[in-house]
């Protein structure tokens, strides 16, 4: 998508700001899910063919998510804002190409087993 069809008197806009909107085709909310910064995503199923109608960024996410990755990590590796990644992940979730896991919630913070696992994990670093 190019910006050449914009009126000549259009104000110049920072391309770093515009790119995220172009990637999502102007969408700002995911079609599915909320996707916290640390929601985890994992690619599921066989790699999609061209009929899935995915953009290069979708495919990059699927590639990255062969191992579980958070929204924040995907954003960092793809050099796109987290909000953009949320929208793209929503598309993939909608097409059943990724599964997602919400982060530990405030309520789950009372779970003793979680604290034990975190302490054990830190001690064995």
């Amino acid at each position, binding site marked *: 998508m190019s910006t050449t069809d914009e009126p000549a008197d259009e*104000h110049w*806009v*920072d391309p*770093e*700001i*515009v790119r*995220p*909107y172009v990637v*999502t085709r*102007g969408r*700002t909310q995911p079609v599915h899910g909320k996707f*916290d*910064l*640390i*929601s*985890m995503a*994992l690619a*599921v*199923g*066989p790699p999609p063919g061209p009929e899935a109608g995915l953009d290069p960024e979708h495919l990059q996410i699927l590639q990255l998510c*062969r*191992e*579980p990755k*958070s929204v*924040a*990590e995907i*954003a*960092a*590796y793809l050099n796109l*804002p*987290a*909000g*953009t990644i*949320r*929208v793209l992940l929503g598309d993939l979730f909608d097409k059943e190409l990724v*599964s*997602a*896991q*919400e*982060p*530990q*919630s*405030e309520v*789950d*913070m*009372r*779970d*003793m087993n*979680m*604290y*034990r*696992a*975190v*302490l*054990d*994990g*830190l*001690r064995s*670093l």
Partner: protein
Amino acid sequence: MVFDRSDRPRLPRAIKILIAGGFGAGKTTMVAAVSETRPLRTEEILTDRGIGVDDLTSVEAKRTTTVAMDFGRITLTNDYVLYLFGTPGQERFWFVWDELAEGSLGAVILADTRRLADCFPSVDYFERRGTPFVVAVNCFEGAPTFELDEVRLALQLDPSIPIILCDARKRDSSREVLITLVKHSARLRAEPVSS
């Protein structure tokens, strides 16, 4: 081709810990010291309407800011992944802090004794929000040395809040800080954890 679900990596639950403190207190240094990869950077685009990417209509009429957050990952077990987020330094980004603090295990406030006042806003913030936190005094070379009690007094910290010395460049030292926080958070929110 059918994939057996059990052959695929499981989806772990993510837990986050915030690393707060004034500019130059060593937040990213600590994230780097304990994380399994180099610190990563994620960005949120903000407009004066708030966080996230909203519509492009008259974007030039809005003030647009990018808030960058450095973070690192520690894969703890198959079930849990820990993320450490350095909080954005400027106080006008409080609403980013809100998003980060929501559902967090707790926060480490890094204190630099040369600029102790820089961590007042963080202490206030986490006290008000009820987020468990510990204060880690980062020992910079040439910085004035204070007794921990003096720092506690200066920050008006409740006696129940752990305060420890650390070297944010060192993995073991930073890990001890995290362990102190996890135990403190467990004490506040769950049953006591035996050490």
